[in-house]
């Protein structure tokens, strides 16, 4: 509860900070300090189970251990994102303070979707996340591509929200309640009503849209490519992971009882997502677009957490969210520093900036799922839980082959950095704190890859 309320308050504070502070640096430090405060507040509540605010939500919100852990992962990832990329937001436009304000509001939405028990809260949470994102996508006002991306995102996003509302309505009609923990209403033949199934399908489609699973992914490459890179980094990682948490909660707790009805469908969505994401990423010329498709491909793997309805799969998703967010934030932070977003832009980076190249390599290895990195263990969790759910060897083998395809495009960047030379070396200026944060990111990826228990053991106590 702390995270929810404090993040909303901090959003308002950040909004007015633009009036009070004249210097961008002051605003930035305030935002970083705010994020730290948020993390501490959440961690304090997590450890003592003693929230600062006691609000009776009538069972609509239930912050359990899983939510606490995810919220703290999300806040920590956002903090790292601030430390790495907050300075680059200056280049986007003049409304520096507002960007931070919007991101704090999104964090508030994340806290909601991670702990909802009522479909209404889910809806509100997703809207609180989505609307600031529409603004952030279009924040580079003079850039036509940014405008286009924003409009596209807004139109398609509202449409899918419409679907979700429709689904919620149907489910309410069948169930008579918004609460997802209620046992399902069944008819005389012990079947759930058609209305409920229709509502569930609509929810499935709109959630698939939100997490950019194929065939609902068409907005993703354009929006990720058009949005200012600093914000793409945030959208593609933390926000996406939060939406996945909502997805898993909804289908595990809400619809887990009738998993036979949707399991096959989710399986097919996973297969298509993995195929489209990986194969299309191979043909990209721009690293930024490649990362957009890679985020679709990774979404395919995260969907396994929805598919395998077990407690361990949620645990795996937490690890996956952390691993994927860290790695992608790291790569974007380096990408933003380069002038050239094509693969050739990375040529010879190992010579000019060995540290940046080294950290990028660790991030890429993690995304590709190579052992000793967090990416491997998270993919491992997903595959293990799916296999133990039974009868889906085809899907696992397909996923593994697609993971092998993903090596192809991730390693293209490594090849460019280490094995190719450039005639026109770019001059990249990076500060010492930036480098230190990057090293921390790399260290976290490796620590999580060797000892995931450090994060996950909290769930067991």
């Amino acid at each position, binding site marked *: 509860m702390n995270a929810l309320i404090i993040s909303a308050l901090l959003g308002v504070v950040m909004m007015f900070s633009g009036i009070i502070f004249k210097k961008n640096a002051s605003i930035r430090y305030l935002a970083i300090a705010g994020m730290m405060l948020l993390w501490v507040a959440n961690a304090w509540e997590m450890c003592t189970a003693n929230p600062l605010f006691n609000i009776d939500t009538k069972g609509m919100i239930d912050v359990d251990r899983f939510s606490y852990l995810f919220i703290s992962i999300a806040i920590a990832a956002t903090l790292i994102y601030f430390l790495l990329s907050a300075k680059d937001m200056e280049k986007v436009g003049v409304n520096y303070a507002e960007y931070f304000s919007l991101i704090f509001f999104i964090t508030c939405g994340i806290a909601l979707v991670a702990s909802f028990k009522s479909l209404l809260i889910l809806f509100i949470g997703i809207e609180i996340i989505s609307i600031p994102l529409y603004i952030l996508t279009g924040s580079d006002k003079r850039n036509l591509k940014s405008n286009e991306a924003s409009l596209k995102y807004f139109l398609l996003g509202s449409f899918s929200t419409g679907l979700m509302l429709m689904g919620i309505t149907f489910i309410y009609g069948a169930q008579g309640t918004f609460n997802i923990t209620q046992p399902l209403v069944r008819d005389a033949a012990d079947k759930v009503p058609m209305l409920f199934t229709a509502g569930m399908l609509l929810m499935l489609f709109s959630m698939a849209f939100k997490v950019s699973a194929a065939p609902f992914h068409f907005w993703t490459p354009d929006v990720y490519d058009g949005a200012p890179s600093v914000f793409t980094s945030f959208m593609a990682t933390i926000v996406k992971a939060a939406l996945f948490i909502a997805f898993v909660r909804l289908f595990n707790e809400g619809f887990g009882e009738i998993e036979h009805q949707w399991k096959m469908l989710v399986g097919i969505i996973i297969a298509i997502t993995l195929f489209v994401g990986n194969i299309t990423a191979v043909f990209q010329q721009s690293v930024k677009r490649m990362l957009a498709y890679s985020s679709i491909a990774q979404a395919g793997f995260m969907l396994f957490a929805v598919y395998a309805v077990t407690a361990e799969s949620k*645990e795996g998703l937490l690890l996956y969210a952390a691993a994927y967010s860290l790695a992608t934030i790291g790569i974007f932070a380096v990408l933003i520093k380069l002038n050239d977003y094509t693969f050739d832009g990375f040529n010879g980076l190992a010579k000019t900036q060995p540290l940046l190249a080294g950290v990028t390599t660790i991030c890429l290895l993690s995304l590709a799922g190579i052992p000793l990195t967090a990416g491997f263990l998270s993919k491992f969790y997903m595959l*293990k839980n799916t296999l133990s759910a039974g009868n889906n060897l085809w899907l696992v083998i397909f996923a593994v*082959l697609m993971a092998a395809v993903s090596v192809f495009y991730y390693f293209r960047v490594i090849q460019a950095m280490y*094995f*190719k030379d450039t005639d026109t070396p770019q001059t990249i200026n990076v500060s010492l704190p930036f480098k230190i944060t990057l090293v921390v990111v790399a260290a976290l990826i490796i620590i999580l890859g060797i*000892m*995931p228990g450090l994060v996950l053991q909290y769930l067991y106590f």
Partner: protein
Amino acid sequence: MIPILLITIPLVAGLLSFFLKNEGMERSWALGMATITLAIAVIGVTIPDGNALLQHTCTWLPALGSDFSVGMDGMGKLLVLLTALAFPIIFTTIFKSTYKKANNFFGLMLLGQAGLMGVFVATDALLFYFFWELALIPMYFLCSQWGGENRIRVSFKFFIYTFIGSLLMLIGLLWLQSKTATHSFSLQSFYALKLSAKEQSGLFWLMFIAFAIKMPIFPLHTWQPDAYEQSPTAVTMVLSGVMVKMGLLGIIRWLLPVMPIAFHAWGDVVMSLSVVGIVYASLIAIRQDDIKRLVAYSSIAHIGLMCMALFSENLSGVQGALVQMFNHGINIIGLWIMVDIIEKRFGTRKMSELGGLAKHHPVMAIFFVLIAFANIALPLTNAFPGEFLMFNGVINAQTSPLYAILFTVFAGMGIILGAVYTLNMVRKIFFGEVNAVYQQQTDLKLHEQIGLGVIVILILITGFFPQLLLNITEPFANTVTTAFVKIKS
């Protein structure tokens, strides 16, 4: 304790090597550390099996059912010894070679050694998989950074090939884990499994493909000649001398005892593939002009024979294959060292451009001829007892007698062809018309003589006293063969 040291010393040494600034220091550092590792490995080999010093277990990922557990059995000892020997020898012979960013080169080599050691001692499936990949990554970077002109494409092919294989293996290991009573990845729990014939069959192929790619077995060998040719020769030595043994170890430790029925049922298929590979690779080797490619193809033929011997399912075959794993590693490293010396001296690897080197480079010729004899397994060289045992195994294989004879005949042809191409290579390089351009070059230098000397001594000692190695592997081979007895009953 000893396995832990064997992993951590090269690992830490490799990581530190990246930070060495002093030009030239990294060689001494790498050589020194590799020698310490060798000393520890020798101590480990002399301790009898089952001693507490050779085992170590501590909790690692309890939620996943995986422990950090390592141990050395007979096979582990032999391969650990091979790895520990290979690296100092390699570092000695390339002591004077120049590499760009040499500290990274030697650092990655040491990291590769740590990965290999881990593969050979891991007794937990997940740990095994970790090290399996850890050994691969440094090799990929070494090939791509310091290799020949096609290095990026070729080493990437190599990487993708092995990565697909290892991912399939991972599914197999996961499946096995989900079947075990305690959901554990430990070797003991895998050995306790009793799977149906159908399950074993599926699992067998998931895992065998990974091992077959690594060895490599026909028709999954296509990455190998290119990768061996394009890699810097020091890396090729590791790839062909030590790394291919990962596949054989995988079969003996992770495949055979876990799924004996499938092992028996698919034995004929695998043996047929191996024998095709032996004849095919030998025939291609005869046609090669590039000595690096020739040695690469000869390696496919030798590995094929070892795989065949394993699938012959009797003590003689298994013993032969185990001993030969070690001996082949020594011989092929020797050959690569010669190839490297010739290439560095004369600037070419083409046999048609070389000739008559024996006249002005007698020391080189003596070493080369001795190693070549070992490569064709002449008696009194180390390869002879191994190949003899393997053939003895294959002819008594647990398949129909007609097949056994056919396999033996064709594999025997491989040996004859092996003599043809190896001796042909010796003739073309060292005898015949003297090429005037090459007269000025010096003969072997001291550090090269030391490296090759160690190899030749090893070839002769284990050739004269094969029992030295057989004693190390015998208890282990006996336990492996009890699995065969179980199938028959």
